């Protein structure tokens, strides 16, 4: 189906054969927000990384369809070009690579052949308001990619990339972990204010972020499987009672 991310019966293991995901199925439509919650070690981050095509994970069964295209075997760059984005839990630092020029290069990579490239001036005009909304100064573009960023800045920089790259679907892997209240509010505001209908998979431990971002669906992942799906009220139940009542 068009404008859908359809994950069917996804089985994933590590290169040395440790099974982590045991059949996850999930359909996300344009503009929907799905929260994925669950205890540590349940496979939430692996799910995010496998969707993006991390070379350390092998998809042994199942299929990922993105806007009608089978991306199950594609390299990460091609998945990105088809409209998928991953907001990293731990964004890696890359020395000597200027954040601004990297981001502009990434935007231009995602423009289809023959399309108009983003000029430095156009880039600045797009970046400045988006950065401001996240509480960044323009200085951010002069720094090296994630290098020397505080924990909060790293998370906010992921959201900044999400805003400018405008993917059709994004997986955000714990965008809230390690953030103070202010940073969380900035992130919530930016995600709510996205001017494109990105379908979101929001991976989180805590209900806290859901005060700012309202998901239509909440899924509980335990031991590599979705054990329960519901609406926002499911998140409240978890906050009160924990994950103990859920098992595969």
């Amino acid at each position, binding site marked *: 189906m068009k404008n859908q991310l359809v994950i069917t019966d996804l089985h994933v293991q590590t290169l040395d054969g440790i099974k982590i995901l045991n059949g996850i199925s999930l359909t996300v439509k344009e503009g929907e927000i799905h929260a994925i919650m669950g205890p540590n070690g349940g496979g939430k981050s692996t799910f995010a990384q496998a969707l993006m095509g991390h070379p350390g994970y092998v998809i042994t069964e199942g299929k990922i369809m993105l806007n009608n295209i089978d991306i199950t075997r594609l390299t990460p*760059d091609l998945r990105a070009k088809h409209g998928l984005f991953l907001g990293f839990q731990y964004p890696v630092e890359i020395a000597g*690579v200027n954040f601004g020029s*990297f981001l502009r290069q990434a935007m231009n990579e995602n423009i289809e052949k023959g399309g108009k490239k983003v000029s430095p001036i156009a880039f600045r005009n797009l970046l400045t308001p988006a950065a401001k909304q996240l509480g960044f100064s323009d200085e951010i573009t002069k720094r090296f990619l994630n290098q020397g960023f505080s924990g909060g800045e790293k998370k906010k920089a992921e959201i900044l990339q999400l805003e400018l790259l405008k993917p059709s679907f994004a997986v955000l892997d714990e965008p809230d972990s390690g953030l103070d209240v202010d940073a969380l509010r900035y992130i919530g505001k930016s995600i709510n204010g996205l001017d494109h209908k990105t379908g979101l998979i929001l991976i989180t431990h805590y209900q806290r972020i859901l005060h700012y971002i309202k998901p239509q669906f909440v899924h509980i992942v335990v031991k590599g499987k979705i054990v329960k799906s519901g609406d926002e009220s499911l998140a409240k139940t978890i906050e009160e009672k924990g994950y103990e009542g859920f098992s595969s």
Partner: protein
Amino acid sequence: MKSQPVVKTSYKYGFHKPEASFFKTPMGLNRQVVEAISHFKNEPEWMLQFRLQALMMFEQKMLPTWGADLSGIDFDAMYYYISPSEKKFTDWGDVPADIKDTYDKIGIPQAEQKYLAGVGAQYDSEVVYHNLKKKWEDLGVIFVDTDTALTKYPDLFRQYFGTVIPVSDNKLAALNSAVWSGGSFIYIPKGVHVDIPLQAYFRINAANMGQFERTLIIADEGSYVHYVEGCTAPIYTTDSLHAAVVEIIVKKGARVRYTTIQNWSNNVYNLVTKRMLVEEEGFGEWIDGNLGAKVTMKYPSVILNGKGAKGEVLSLAFAGKGQHQDAGGKAIHLAPYTTSTITSKSVSVGGGRSSYRGMVKIINGAKGSKSFVRCDALLLDELSRSDTYPTNIVNEEDVTLGHEASVSKIGEEQLFYLMSRGLSEAAATGLIVNGFIEPIVKELPLEYAVELNRLINLSMEGSVG
């Protein structure tokens, strides 16, 4: 802008010797060849004696065996002097396709391409050059080719020539001393700051792209100059040996920065001796980038000869398939409160090999001196290799000495991160490599930095995926 004719038949300004008639020494090297060179150039007797003494040293000395493999050099199968006017140009059709392709991809204009490939005559930049030259001359700056300097400024020349690198220094320096031709001679008067980098580029012509260039720079007290030579684009040559000598004298309180980017084609042995003598409170800097050549051996040196003298060496090496870059730097502290920094970055790919070789020497009495050496190597695959050969000789107690070294591989997590944003593996690798060498590239003139960046991305396309 109106386009200028690409090839000029005569030189109004500059360094070329239009009257030079055809002259070529026979293959191989002996006393007659050296005498013939000196005679042809109409040199004074002392220079002939200098050359002959150097020839003796060349014959006595062994090739260095502690570095790269030089066994492929056949000194008997070379021509040691061909007069510039008759220098045979390569046929454009003979220039390897990959080199032409590189020119196109990094966006070098056609006229310049031919020059770089050794086809046809000069790249025309004389109009620009003439104006600058006038400005420099008004300041008393001398910037001529070394042969001209010997004729035109004999006293100044003789006072400094061969004083920093004596003929007996090493076999290759001796060879250069015996058969040298071309190169640059620069004198900056006291207190003069040359604000625009002097570029060998402005006067590039076949004569000065010689195999045995000899460069001498004298920066008088309190002066400043930045000299830039070489070029990021590959230079195609059929000569298999490039043995240059660069001598620089930095007088009290003066500052000299010497930037080189070389990208010889992969058949060349590039064996260059470069040394700066830095006097009290002077500052000498080498920025040395080695991209091409089959074998490079190059260790720019700073001799810190006066109190408070400073020296800095930034060395960048890129070793691709079939290449061995043996590069680094040397700092010799001969006076108190002298400081030196050596920073080396190397990238090896496709089975290429890069070695850092460096020396820091601090003599007894050079109190309060400081030296810091940092060498980082990046390996792009399992086939490539990197080695580090540091030497420290310290005979003074009151010194600060630091050394840091690292060898890293392209990180899987870094690649994944960049690729998740839509960058291909080659583009992502190029970005990481460019980031790795950024601390050195940021010191280069902009046009070099831009070209280098493109060149690295280009070589990634060929080696990844």
